[in-house]
């Protein structure tokens, strides 16, 4: 354990990563709650003839990415506005 040589990330890096990480946590919870109650398969079935949607995995992924970006936006703005 004596062998650390971690590259220190700067303040900006710290902020960005913290924002992304918190957004990831919140988005995971949101995705879980949302898809526990909403089944995306009817939507997939509805879209399937017109678009090349292979599987529900895409709906789950898009759902997560949607929540992730919204949460990242919120925590990013918060971090930015709280900057002295």
């Amino acid at each position, binding site marked *: *354990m*004596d*062998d*650390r*040589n*971690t*590259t*220190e*990330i700067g303040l900006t890096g*710290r902020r960005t*990563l*913290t924002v992304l*990480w918190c957004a990831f*946590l919140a988005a995971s919870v949101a995705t*879980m709650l949302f*898809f*526990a*109650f909403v*089944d995306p*398969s009817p939507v997939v079935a509805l879209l399937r003839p017109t678009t090349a949607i*292979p*599987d*529900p*995995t*895409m709906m*789950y*992924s898009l759902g997560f990415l949607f929540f992730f970006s919204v949460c990242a936006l919120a925590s990013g703005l918060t971090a930015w506005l709280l900057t002295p």
Partner: protein
Amino acid sequence: MTVGAPPEESYYAAHQKVYPREVRGVFTRLRITAAWVLLGLFYGLPWLRWEGRQAILFDLPARQFHLFGLTLWPQDFVFLAWLLVIAALSLFFFTAVAGRLWCGYACPQTVWTEVFLWMERVTEGDRSRRMKLDAAPWSIAKLGRKALKQILWIGFALWTGFTFVGFFTPITDLASRLFAFSASSWETFWVLFYGFATYGNAGFLREQVCKYMCPYARFQSAMFDRDTLIITYDAARGEPRGGRRKGVDPASNGLGSCTDCTLCVQVCPTGIDIRQGLQYECIACAACIDACDSVMDHMGYPRGLIRYDTQHRLEHRSTRILRPRVLVYGMLLAVLIGGFVVALALRKPVGLDVLHDRNTLYRNLPSGEIENVYLLKIMNKDSRPHEFRVSLEPEEAATDGEGSNRHRLDPEEPKFLVPAGEVFNAAVRVRRRAWNDAADTDHEDSGADAETGLGAADEIHFVITAADDPGLTARAESRFFAPRD
């Protein structure tokens, strides 16, 4: 040796010039064992089979969660939430008893960082070698070592991402698809995403995650009190610190037990000096305990200058492990776990959802009857197939003379065979005579809308019962619509 002896004569001041070796000791062994067990579970579990399918699988497309013989559905979401509460409370409990045990032994951040550090050590050598290597000009050897490290890191990170996705999609299929380069773009995306996250967290950020990004690191102090076992330096025994020869009785030259070898600082993964007291950066990895114990052994002093202990005992006051906080956490935990087990055991392996046909509220049949159509979703959460009989629950206001229901199913008793662990969609028709026909007026028209003329609605209850097990039933409510007369 006197107090004022020049430092180069003292044993550990000299030793300090040599770059420290790896720590060895009880806690290091414990930590490595824990890491092996956890990594083994993570990388091994998705490959485990159980009754012909993957033992642990969050099957997203099918919306089922397989846990050995148990299949959980979105309807069982409460169990998952319950589990999370149990996990959180255990964290509280263990933190109250012995501080950041989680961080030192179980946190994925710690475990994966150790693996990445090990790979770095294997390819680039120990700390001094690496510092020399970094300072040296680029050469073939340097390039080779660096490249080898990156290959190991990236390979391991990708394997981690692959394993992670393997918890969500059958891992054997995923493996064959990935190696044939025919995985769906989303699967590839998630493998890369988690691979990248692993690399970033364990290879690049390391202890900075603990210092800057971890919520637990910030709030764990709220669960501490002066009776919590923490990693402490016994300042009363150690100070005043100073170098001395091996075997010298510290009392004879006015010193404490600390030889000021700074080994505890050198081994600390977060780079703090535990001798300055408990700091929030300390992840309780106990590396400093092992390091210090080895020094104490060498000097012939008793071990435990740095040890797990409570603030109270360090202040020579009485300390209790079993105190109200621990008892309350412990009791809550026991109740929650007990309740979880009982609820899981009592869980009915059958579920029923009823949807009213979306397109037509009702139909007037030539026979004078009114018909509604429903879609029944019958969930067989059991591990064997069942045939389910559908019926309507007897109605209180069954007033059409013969004591039977006002509503009836058509056909009378539909049966559906539902395979194990599947949802079966069944359309069923319900009929009843029109109101003017039925000549009874006590119907409730709760859902009726006089203005749109939509009609009255009766509550009806569907019941399904397994033909081979009358105890296996589920019930769901819906509405029967009829024109307003």
